[in-house]
């Protein structure tokens, strides 16, 4: 009897916190469908009294948010492909080869986890200029493709792939690239999926890199555009809220589909969300 009382209290808390997490998000998404008159009303309602898409169309037409969405999608997709490829390659080298300097390389890679971008953002700006990437979408794609956490999870995962698979392929005369593409990659699929999903989310939500690397409005990503609009003297809340909704809905959907990968990724490698 006592136990059941306890679990009832637990459910009250559980539901309360679920509401605290969900209601603000849902409220903002619903607000994106309200016409100005309701948005700025002194007595707002939770559901729009009159549904409209005008906030979205206005943001896409006047605010050029179509460009920003395209830029963000491009960066997130291409960066994820490059990142998964080169991190799997590095993880493979560190897990399956014995070579001079391997442990030092691993230590250096892992220690950079403790070096946040915020600490090196000033000189990174100089390096981006010197390497000609400044004000190019590639500045958001290439540098961020080499993550220490990505290398780490690929290495840990590939350690569990049996060496016999590679050895028998070598005896059969398969080249190293073929071994990598046809044996290692298929065997690393779960880890690649986890890393890919995280990478896409990181790049989609990224702010500090774009802030340092991009000043040309044609190259803005969604986050950069939203933050710049919020800094304006008279904030156009209609477009802002529509864009906030457009920015978060894809991530929420990705999360609902790939929940399991997120949980595993965090619990095994402490991947930052």
């Amino acid at each position, binding site marked *: 009897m006592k136990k059941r009382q306890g679990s009832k209290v637990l459910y009250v808390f559980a539901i309360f916190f679920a509401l605290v*997490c969900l209601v603000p998000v849902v409220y903002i998404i619903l607000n994106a469908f309200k016409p100005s008159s309701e948005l700025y009303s002194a*007595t707002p309602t939770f559901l729009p009294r009159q549904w409209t898409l005008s906030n979205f169309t206005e943001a896409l037409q006047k605010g050029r948010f179509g460009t920003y969405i395209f830029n963000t999608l491009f960066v997130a997709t291409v960066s994820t492909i490059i990142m998964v490829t080169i991190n799997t390659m590095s993880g493979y080298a560190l897990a399956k080869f014995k*070579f001079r300097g391997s442990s030092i390389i691993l230590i250096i890679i892992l220690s*950079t986890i403790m070096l946040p971008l915020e*600490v090196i953002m000033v000189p990174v*700006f100089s*390096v981006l200029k010197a390497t000609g990437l400044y004000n190019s979408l590639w500045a958001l794609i290439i540098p961020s493709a080499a993550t220490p956490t990505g290398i780490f999870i690929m290495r840990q995962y590939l350690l569990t792939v049996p060496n016999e698979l590679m050895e028998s392929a070598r005896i059969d005369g398969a080249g190293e690239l073929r071994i990598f593409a046809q044996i290692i990659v298929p065997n690393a699929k779960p880890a690649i999926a986890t890393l890919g999903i995280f990478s896409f989310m990181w790049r989609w939500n990224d702010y500090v890199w774009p802030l340092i690397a991009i000043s040309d409005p044609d190259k803005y990503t969604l986050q950069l555009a939203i933050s710049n609009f*919020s800094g304006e003297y008279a904030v156009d809340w209609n477009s802002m809220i529509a864009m906030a909704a457009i920015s978060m809905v894809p991530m929420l959907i990705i999360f609902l589909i790939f929940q399991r990968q997120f949980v595993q990724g*965090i619990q095994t490698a402490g991947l930052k*969300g």
Partner: protein
Amino acid sequence: MSTKTTSYKWYQRKQKIIPYLFLAPNLAIFITYIIVPAVMGAYYSLTSFDGLHDPKFIGLKNYVELFTDDPRFIDALLNTFKYVGVTVPLTFVAALGLAYIVVSIFRGKSFFRASYYWPVMISTIVVGVMWQWILGDTFGLVNVFRNAIGLEKMQTLTNPTFAWWTTVFVMVWSRAGYYMVMFMGGLLSIPRSLYEAADIDGANRFQQFFRITLPVIKPTCILVLILSTMQIFKVYPMVVTLTGGGPYNATRYIVQHIYETAFEYYEVGYASAMSVVMLIVVTIFSAINFAVTKGGER
């Protein structure tokens, strides 16, 4: 015979180069965009540099100035300490509480886990926009409610105290779900038999929590403390859209100060010195965490 040995030697030599080739693209990016900037930053911090002209070596002058003649820097740094000191424990407790709820309930586990994790998926920029809309002075819900019950309008994000605590609350709101997942991993690894034995011995819930749960999940606790301290120390994007650092610099934290010093006032050398100080402070925080908790030893 001899051709066979040479080809074998050649094969061996090739095998030695291969791991380096697999590592090459990653290492090239690492060196160019992390190691080189780190070294450059350390050098810049010893120079007077405006980002345009050549840096001029001035020794430790930047550091001396930071700590003797720059109240704005000290304010931002102390404000960040205060922020970390309040937000990290709150995030810790919230995350552990949520993990406890999800692990303990029977029905709707995955629904509640998903709900609590939801805010983590939203970019910090958008999180700031959301809460600015919800809590802002003009259109915010606080004043809608006050209006509805006949109270006067109050200052929300234009009030320094309210704004500061809002940055605390919003950080906890947006990060707790992430650390919750880490705690869940720890909590689920505790064998049920430990609690059953404690039940038989008549230990109550509190005793069980402090004597069994906490000691077993200690390594997770340390990881959460170190990661959340680093994360919360570099709070910036959320503040950009939530308060812009105001009102009256009440929510101005160190990363914003470094960013503006370098990119708005072009004192690149000086800002680099701030970055070095920040790195040292973050490292000390982690080391203290690690030492106090004795590195996860039980």
